[in-house]
């Protein structure tokens, strides 16, 4: 039996300024799925994710998305203030979203960032900043993950850790829509590839 779809995109068109990025894009996605959105540079992958997240309005088409409190967005930028430590950045995010900040230590441990907890974010490497942003996924307990280039800046170990997060989330019934120019590691499990064309 097919699972009930909870993310439906129908004939979506997006534009930036007076340039149409794409038109007529459709996607149906259900909980438990991992969808890898592919396409050339400038095809509109980031804009599509931003639209699904609620940061951008489409030109036309129909969009049926899960409620915002069920979705977690990680964009190109990590959302870390350089003057705050990794722990303080996560603590602020927990306060903002009403998440329990008691799990910050465990989340950082899971991403092997224990030593970075008390260090200002400006002193962290690009990969450590990305891992800190990914640690929010473990604190949010949200069903839908929208991830824009989550592997950017991650080393081999970080990529493996991310793949473990993906596999665990899928096993728990979660869904992931992501873009990545890097190939996803096999530990991620079965992935549906969807190409975005202009």
């Amino acid at each position: 039996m097919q699972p009930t779809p909870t993310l439906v995109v129908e004939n979506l068109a997006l534009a930036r300024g007076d340039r149409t990025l794409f038109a007529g894009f459709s996607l149906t996605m259900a909980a438990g799925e991992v969808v890898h959105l592919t396409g050339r540079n400038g095809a509109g992958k980031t804009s599509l994710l931003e639209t699904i997240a609620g940061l951008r309005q489409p030109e036309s088409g129909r969009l049926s998305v899960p409620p915002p409190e069920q979705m977690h967005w990680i964009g190109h930028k990590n959302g870390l203030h350089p003057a705050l430590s990794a722990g303080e950045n996560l603590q602020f995010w927990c306060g903002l979203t009403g998440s329990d900040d008691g799990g910050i230590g465990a989340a950082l441990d899971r991403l092997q960032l224990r030593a970075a907890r008390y260090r200002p974010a400006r002193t962290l490497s690009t990969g450590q900043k990305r891992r800190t942003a990914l640690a929010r996924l473990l604190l949010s307990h949200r069903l839908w993950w929208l991830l824009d280039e989550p592997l950017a800046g991650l080393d081999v170990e970080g990529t493996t850790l991310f793949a473990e997060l993906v596999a665990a989330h899928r096993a728990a019934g979660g869904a992931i829509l992501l873009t990545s120019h890097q190939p996803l590691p096999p530990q991620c499990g079965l992935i549906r590839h969807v190409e975005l064309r202009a």
Partner: protein
Amino acid sequence: MSLLKALGATLLRELRLAARAPAEAAQPLLFYALVAAIFPLGVTANEPSLAKYAPAIVWIAALLASLMTLERVFRSDFDDGTLELLALAHPPLPLIVAAKLAAHWLVGGLPLALLAWPLGSGLGLSAEAAPVLAMSLLLGTPTLVLLGGFAAALTVGLPRAGLLLPILILPMLAPVLIFGAGAVRMAADGLDPSAPLYFLAALLALSATLVPFAAAAALRNALES
């Protein structure tokens, strides 16, 4: 409850950031005090008309000092991606904007109002007028921060917004200056300053009601562009 927690977390974060960069918070205060202190050096010693111009001197110094930090209100959040998180968070963005601006006023606006009394007295303001100067700034500086925050939100996505910001904001702040300095002049002349102070309070109520929504819309627009 989670809404209050979110607003508290926003307020705490802003205050923590201000505490991490005390020099940044102190710069506008030093500028404010220096402008008020240097002004008498440009006129004749013991010039009796200095007290007449003291309200305008202190008010303009406060206005320029508050402009110094406005560009930073949303800039770092926009640059590091925090603004995206704020826009998608559970509490409505206008409330988060209000919390950020409240923190900005606590760090940058309230000290201006508290310093006004000694600065005004130093410029020769009478004992009756100096507390009115402090009161006018207490009512006026939140409006400066709110309207300045709106202008900062409008220009957050623009390069070199620091140049555009004063041109955009100074005309908007003219009524605050007129009523603020006017209240002190009336007190110095022995008149009742209540009417201009009420106008300042009305401007504050109006901007506190409207600006968070307008600034949030401008920020969303900046994220989309």
